């Protein structure tokens, strides 16, 4: 089927998300809470666009809006620009230290709403980190409270007991709000320091011991001491032995 985005005719499959269609056609829409591995968020609302369908106009979030009918889409008209500007200003009030939001505010000429409280940090409470953590199974962090007091926190506001130090939360975070440090031997996340394990054969970094234990427990095996590459290599050698013996 065909839809028109900012005057450009674009082909798409019914049910495809509007954002994907736009991106494929080289049309830029800003996003924050959208992450390809964790679809269906739709909460930051910076990716709003106007959709005109059979004469009806509505504002939708492009990252989760499935295209089902022919329509005309405006990703950056005056109305959307103004509303996106307001949303960005509101996000900046919440996360004054975030560079990406500051940059977006600048791009959309959205001035600060009032004096920013620098204590407020970088988190925009999109919940991606929580979803990442629960999707991989650790479930170490959660959102607490509702409304304007909502925040992301490990249980009891202490370093999370169930955290395995994989760092997925920090990697998916759109505003780099989760502090994450790593050196040769240790990794620190959520104020908890983990020892990094290295491959017994090649010495490559394999992640934290807790991470390896978690993966092994899920698979019902013993934690590996070799990295993936070396394990494959070893397997190949074993196989070669087996074949040459026959």
């Amino acid at each position, binding site marked *: 089927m065909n839809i028109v985005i900012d005057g450009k005719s674009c082909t798409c499959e019914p049910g495809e998300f509007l954002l994907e269609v736009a991106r494929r056609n080289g049309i830029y829409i800003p996003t924050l809470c959208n992450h390809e591995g964790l679809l*269906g968020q*739709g*909460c*930051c*609302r*910076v990716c*709003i666009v106007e959709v005109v369908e059979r004469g009806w106009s509505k*504002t*939708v*979030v492009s990252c*989760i*809006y*499935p295209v089902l009918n022919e329509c005309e889409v405006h990703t950056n008209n005056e109305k959307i620009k*103004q*509303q996106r500007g*307001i*949303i960005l200003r*509101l*996000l900046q*009030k*919440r996360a004054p230290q975030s560079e990406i939001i500051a940059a977006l505010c600048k791009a959309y000429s959205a001035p600060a*709403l*009032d004096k920013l409280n620098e204590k407020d940090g970088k988190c*925009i*409470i999109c*919940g991606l980190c929580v979803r990442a953590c629960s999707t991989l199974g650790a479930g170490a962090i959660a*959102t607490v*409270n*509702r*409304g*304007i*007091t*909502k925040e992301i926190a490990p249980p009891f506001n202490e370093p999370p007991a169930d955290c395995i130090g994989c760092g997925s939360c920090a990697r998916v975070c759109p505003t780099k709000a989760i502090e994450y440090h790593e050196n040769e031997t240790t990794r620190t996340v959520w104020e908890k320091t983990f020892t990094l394990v290295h491959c017994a054969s090649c010495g490559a970094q394999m992640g934290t011991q807790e991470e390896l234990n978690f993966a092994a427990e899920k698979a019902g095996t013993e934690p590996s001491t070799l990295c993936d590459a070396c394990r494959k290599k070893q397997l190949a050698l074993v196989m070669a032995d087996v074949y040459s013996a026959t």
Partner: protein
Amino acid sequence: MKRTLLVCCGTGCLANGSEQVVQALENAINKMGVMGQIEVKAHIKRTGCNGFCENGPIVQILPDDISYYKVKPHDAQDILSALQENKVVERLLYKNENGERIKSKLENPFYKPQYKIALRNIGEIDPGNIEDYISRGGYEALTKALNMSGSEIIEQVELSGLRGRGGAGFPTGRKWRTAAGYDVFPKYVVCNGDEGDPGAFMDRSILEGDPHSVIEGMAICALAIGATEGFLYIRDEYGLALKNVNAALASALELGFLGKNIMGSGKALNLSVVRGGGAFVCGESTALMASIEGRVGEPRAKYIRSVQRGLWDCPTVLNNVETFANIPVIIRDGGPLYATLGTKTSSGTKVFALVGKVKRTGLVEVQMGATLRHLIFDIGGGIIDDRPFKAVQTGGPSGGCIPSAMLDLPVDFDTLTQYGAMMGSGGMIVMDDRDCMVEVARYYVKFLTEESCGKCTPCREGLRHMLDILTGICEGRGQDGDLELLEQLCQTIAESSLCALGKSAPNPVLTTLKYFRDEYEAHIHNKYCPAGVCSKLTTFVIEKNKCKSCGLCKKNCPVNAIRGEKGQAYEIDQRSCIACGSCRQACRFEAILAQGRAQK
């Protein structure tokens, strides 16, 4: 002649001691029975909410048609003695504006203009007794529906023109038709009894006072769409409603109106109660379903509707308590008859919870299209102390404030919406000249900042910023540009929020900005609160020549800031006064004046 004494035991009356009244009546009857006066066989039923709560406990005597109000246990003896002599206890009758005592409930100005469908049995039956419900035609509609096809049932609902009473007014028949059209099983029927609007208690009263009407409505819906499983989602604080619904489910099951084989038809329906967590947002359809499924009660984007993919991704019909309570009447009497009530686009009746500065408060059911004036002045009896009417807030936090110029608007789904307000689920809070409209807007925004689920930016952050601005205005820190920014925020929140909580959250602000802008401007530019409510902008003074030195103000002051003695005008010590306004509310002689601080 066998007489029946109906003692209201709804939440309001229970709080006022109706249990003790029941006890006292029972004791008195026993005592008189011993004395051999056997003609009076008074019989006490526990009935649900009568809707006239502030005058409870209410005792109605049938077939004499006598209604007594504010009955105390020590009145029991008088009531029974009078009954034996075929007399009435004058002092317990309702007194109307002209001081006349009214004997019949139907002649009472609060009840007389009402037209009851959803509340048809409330106050007339014992909700704990299924036979009572059946004796008033209950479960006749279900019997009838069992002999109809699903499509025939839905046709009657379509013909009735019934629209959802939960707020949005979506046509119920169309919703059912869509759900019936999906060939995906199982299907679910869900009743929304979350009722979180401040000041609303329509659904609670129905669930408490006539639970079978809702159960029967749900059973008919299940037959129509082919559902075999259903849930009643009821707010956890509604203890009596939960108890009465659970008891009603058990007795309906016992008599075969629910269960594996409904009245021998081979059709099945299992209904159960889910206790809501008490968050306002859990009333929103997708959040409610998430909550039933055991997930966090947060809304999701509704680009695919829940009639198609609702509970556990199956077709689901969600309707409000009052919507379901209307169904048995529609099926029993036919859709076309129901459609003759109310207006063309909003048929039938609507229940309102009339509260605030109105003389008679309580639950009111009238035909759609009644004017606000009729509700507030005829049924409600006008404003307390005959003060000037200022506004009525309809539809709770998603509704708006309607000024006096619009009192003659008919109340239905579409009219108020055109004016930026909304009939909503039926909350109606009446305000007088001593209510500050900026403060009212601030109050609702504050409520919503606490009740928003916090998932999406416009609602969570937008409301937070609106609250900052409104608090600033109320506290004298308002500045040029505030109102324009408020309007921009409103527009963004209304259009780009994820769910209807956010989308409708700006309504109280937008309507007050539209109809009471001068009040905002007075706060911002003159640092003056015309209603004398915002304490940072107000001082109270006692006018010497009007003060009758009764001392009521002193008694009501929470911080003991008023001095005076009999024979002299009282005086407020401005240093300790916190400008709460309690004294002004207490004074019977209009002797206490609210003044701006800046004017001092």
